[in-house]
């Protein structure tokens, strides 16, 4: 019987022959990383382990992105720990403020995560890089410390659910809408411990930025990771970026899947996930007059250049509603610079939006846009749990950049069609 892309990647990284689904194996790690929240604990345990150096100085990444640029003294201390550790252990891939970005966008952009890799990050949205055809999983700090020492990870071989998307995408429907719709169909634990493999004609036509968005939110269905087979679009993205040779794997046609779920995208409208779970998605046409106080466009889910282009297309010549704060956060410095060069930042500022240096900031209620009691935000981020963006009695609605931009203009959750025809 054939193998899935994930089974092939795992086989190439383990000494265990003929492993079965559910078996625990040890696998070699190609790239490991952590941020200013998760690295401090990992660094402490790394130092306690007795190891003299990390398993490979080129294959460890440290990225201060969550509460950086430092939001307070304690955060400054955490970021300082990363900086000093990177210096002491000669970690090449430490990204300082001014050169950084949110880890899950930055590392693929810099060509440090590649197809066929096993990538382990101390952050749940590590699954984002599955869009490149890598097996990318999130773990906690102790796991990351172990990987920094040993260069390997223990993992349970996961079953895969294959999602096949067909049909024609409607106007304003993006990768974000596809993944919100998918999560609403299977639930927030619908893929717990499993891989979500996204495939079909729609995915084959989907841009890299939209693919990253889809894989990013696989974790919101509980998945171990999301993955997409590399194709010409992937290879085009990798040109001039890839820092090392890589291997392309594809699923065999007779590979075994736990389940195959077919989705006709022609019926999908822009989606909005209501509080307080990402599975609560509703089509935009069913949403009636929900006023908002804030709109966030950014994050590892939707802060890439295409996201900003769509937001700018809608905001051009318009004004942000007088009772709304719109905050735009390009995901990396490269994306920020591109947005300036393309005139997008000018459009945002002319419309009355605030534009920030890259940070996870408001997505997890860190800073740069915290909600007060009773306030409501529409956001292109990935989670809408209780208290996620601030006060436990505030609310977060998840949507695409197009919906977040249109809503910022109209002061209520709105379809892009209301602002822009066709």
């Amino acid at each position: 019987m054939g193998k899935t892309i994930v089974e092939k990647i795992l086989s190439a990284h383990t000494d265990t022959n003929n492993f079965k689904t559910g078996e625990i194996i040890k696998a070699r790690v190609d790239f490991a990383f952590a941020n200013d929240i998760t690295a401090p604990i990992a660094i402490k345990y790394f130092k306690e382990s007795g190891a003299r150096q990390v398993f490979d100085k080129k294959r460890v990444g440290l990225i201060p992105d969550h509460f950086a640029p430092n939001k307070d003294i304690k955060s400054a201390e955490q970021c300082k720990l990363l900086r000093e550790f990177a210096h002491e252990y000669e970690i090449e891939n430490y990204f300082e403020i001014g050169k950084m970005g949110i880890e899950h966008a930055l590392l693929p952009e810099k060509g440090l995560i590649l197809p066929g890799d096993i990538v382990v990050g101390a952050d749940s949205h590590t699954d984002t890089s599955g869009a490149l055809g890598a097996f990318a999983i999130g773990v906690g700090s102790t796991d990351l410390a172990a990987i920094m020492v040993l260069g390997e990870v223990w993992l349970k071989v996961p079953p895969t659910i294959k999602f096949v998307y067909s049909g024609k995408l409607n106007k304003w429907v993006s990768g974000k809408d596809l993944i919100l719709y998918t999560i609403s169909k299977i639930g927030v634990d619908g893929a717990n411990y499993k891989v979500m493999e996204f495939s079909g004609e729609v995915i084959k036509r989907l841009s890299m930025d939209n693919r990253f968005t889809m894989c990013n939110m696989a974790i919101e269905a509980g998945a171990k990771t999301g993955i997409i087979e590399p194709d010409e679009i992937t290879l085009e993205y990798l040109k001039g970026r890839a820092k090392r040779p890589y291997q392309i794997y594809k699923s065999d046609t007779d590979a075994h899947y736990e389940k195959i779920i077919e989705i006709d995208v022609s019926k999908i409208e822009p989606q909005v996930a209501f509080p307080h779970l990402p599975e609560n998605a509703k089509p935009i046409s069913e949403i009636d007059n929900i006023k908002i106080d804030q709109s966030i466009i950014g994050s590892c889910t939707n802060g890439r250049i295409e996201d900003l282009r769509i937001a700018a297309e809608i905001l051009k010549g318009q004004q942000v509603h007088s009772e709304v704060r719109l905050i735009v956060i390009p995901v990396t410095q490269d994306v920020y610079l591109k947005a300036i060069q393309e005139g997008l930042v000018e459009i945002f500022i002319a419309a009355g939006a605030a534009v920030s240096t890259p940070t996870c900031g408001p997505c997890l209620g860190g800073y740069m846009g915290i909600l007060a009691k009773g306030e409501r935000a529409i956001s292109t981020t990935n989670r809408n749990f209780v208290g996620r963006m601030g006060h436990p009695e505030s609310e977060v609605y998840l949507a695409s950049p197009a919906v977040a931009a249109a809503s910022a203009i109209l002061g209520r959750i709105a379809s892009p069609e209301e602002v822009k025809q066709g």
Partner: protein
Amino acid sequence: MIIKGKIWKFKDNVDTDVIIPARYLNTSDPEELALHCMEDYDQEFVKKMDKGDIIVAGKNFGCGSSREHAPIALKAAGVSCIIAQSFARIFFRNAINIGLPIFESEEITDQCSEGELLKVDTEKGIMENIKKGKTYKLNSLPAFIQNIISLGGLREYVKEEVKRRKRDV
């Protein structure tokens, strides 16, 4: 190991933002994290619970962020063990790695009430609702994970591995 404590019940999909809100993640000090454990769910939770109490929850406990601060906060707050219908995978790893005992059980959520006393026998893989006088089976853990637990967590496993590799060089 025998764990005995009173039950606090939680529903499905308890996420790590509720277990420890991100606004407190500018520290990794267990005692400081423990002060804010579950505060967005119930401001008084930490004050109301006693050391050694047990959390019984529905499915997908610990979903969301990979923050190890979540099991650290629960452990430091005095939670002795968590029994849920299922766990989100990163939380599961983190709890095992830091030595917070967690078990899966299909039946327990429906059959236990808040405040009842529960006795967990990890060796026998059973738990007993003392008030109701009923015994339930716990799902057993794979051998590899049991080995990590018996070594005292992943950190000890890594220390052993480092010593072994130094010897082999």
